[in-house]
């Protein structure tokens, strides 16, 4: 295998996994970077023809979670309605989520 990799650009399962983890993640919400990523991926495919947009919903388990955004460099609260909040420190997050101030929406 090493002999082959000396002559060919051979990717292995492990190296592919590393490459994937370094790929940019989906931004929180809809941002300018959302469109930049799509443009980059279409460029990789060398495609500039028509595309079809589609949209659908699925059920989600309601929960508030901290999420680390690599691109923005910080922890953000996800799982609530509205724009994401940046979490200043973990103690504040714990206090806010464990207090009764958070109200979960009930299904209509």
């Amino acid at each position, binding site marked *: 295998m090493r002999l082959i990799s000396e002559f060919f650009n051979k990717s292995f399962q492990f190296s592919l996994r590393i490459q994937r983890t370094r790929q940019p993640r989906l931004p929180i*919400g*809809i*941002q300018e970077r959302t469109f930049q990523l799509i443009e980059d991926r279409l460029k990789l495919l060398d495609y500039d023809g*028509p595309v079809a947009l589609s949209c659908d919903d699925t059920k*989600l388990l309601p929960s508030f979670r901290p999420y680390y955004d690599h691109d923005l460099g910080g922890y953000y609260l996800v799982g609530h309605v509205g724009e994401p909040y940046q979490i200043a420190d973990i103690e504040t997050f714990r206090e806010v989520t464990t207090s009764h101030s958070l109200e979960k929406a009930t299904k*209509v």
Partner: protein
Amino acid sequence: MTHEVLSQHSPCLLMHALEQLRLWCLQVPLPKVAPLIVAAKGIPNDVSADDLFPDLWHIVSGLIDRKIQVTSYAADGSNVERNVQRLLEQHATKTITIRIKHPSDGHPDIRIELPFFGSHPFVIPIANLQDSKHLLKTFRNNLYSGARLLTFPNGVAMFSQVREMAFDTESPLFRRDVEKLDRQDDNAATRLFCAASLQWLESRGPEFSALVVYLFVFGDLIDAYQNRSISITERIQIVLRAYFFLEMWEEFLLKARYPKSKHFISSQCAAIAHTLSMGFVKLVVIYRDHVEGSPPLLPWLLCTEVIEHVFGLCRQIVKDFTEKDFRDMEPKLFIKIRQAIFTAHATDGKARASGYSHTYTDGRGINMTALSLYPTNRDIDEAAVRAYGEAESLFGFLGVSSRELHASSTILPGIQSWVLDDHSVPDLVEDTNDSDLLCDEEDESDYDDYQAVIDSLEDSSIGISQQKKLNRYRYATIALSVDEQMEMCVKSFLMTLDSDDIHPIEPSSQNLITTITSRPFRMTQPALPKFLHNRFPLPTLINQAIRSNLPYLMSRLSI
């Protein structure tokens, strides 16, 4: 982008947990290309179209700003989603109208509004679509609904007929398709609308004629999107046939005064069918006139099935996921989508109560040449004429010809108007409520009325001229009655014959059958379809679909 920092003073009291994940995907409409996830956003349950539209508008505007040519926007057929699509159309920069000449004289041209978005020089049209396979299930569920009875001129299509088919030993359906049924089962819907079902129904006799036509017309509408090989002109003909058939059906119910809420498909189903019919024409015009190089049109890739597949893969990784789980599983999802696309094989058509069955990755038998040849406007008009002819024939087969449907309704004066001048004539055109239409007591009261009139005539002294006039009406009634008796005799005689032994019939009867069957299928005689119901074979159109030119949906199953 700046975000608010969560602190102890944040307005957390207003925060609600999300209950749904809204996902937008882009699909390059070519085989073996994985969908691209554009954005994912959590939403609460109780959202209106006004709440959802800003996100869609943000995405559409952002993609257009990057010169990405979005040609269609697909969503499911719920009321909220259709309102979002309506809002999108309202935000169009400009709109052009596609006109298709209506083949029938009394109707205005079909006008299809095509919205354009963006600003000069990048102005692109976008066609709103809904999911074709969802519509197939909606047609099935409408047929199974106990709240409505799909009524055609000489018959009805209903659940008990399908149940009878499912319980037959030679049936293409499984019992599970009608008992403890899964209403979201793609495979069961495909089995119901497939060629084998039509063949079974055809072999069982004329009482299923309404069901056969229903399954054929609307199964074929979905096939116009799902078929991998037929030409675009043929697809246009199919979608327009469904459009005209729905138009005739509605017209019939209106004239027969059957309430649409009980005897027609649901308004949502009709709206989705209309969107899909017109949406296909829009797609053809967009790909032909507004996309450089006119690439092949692969309509089965332009639907929400792509997203449902992504959701299905998500649930394979984490069954009940949160928004954070979705973000964490994204790299794995990226691999799984590609794995599914590249290793895709035909799904199991015999699976029961298995919910969604994704077929968009199935690229067997794609005819790229046929999918790249776009019809001209003249070809579309000609296809509309053919489609109208077919819809007319099918509706004629069900019992009412186009001439009857479009004729102005002539209502004979009531019997009381002949003799009793001072008595007010009952208005037969006045609206009656639903129960009146199906009520037997109405007939009995009419009979009593007639009897009362006859009694009064016998009691009263009438002149000679009135006596002669009355006699003429009596003779006319007797003549009509004799004619009806003769017709019934011929009908019962024909019923006794088996379809295969027409040859030993006496010459006079043979001539009668030859005369009837040699008529063109487009029936214009009012009594003819009813008269022929027990002998006339299925329309050639359906026979062809069953035997020779099996559409994709129908041939996909190896039943």
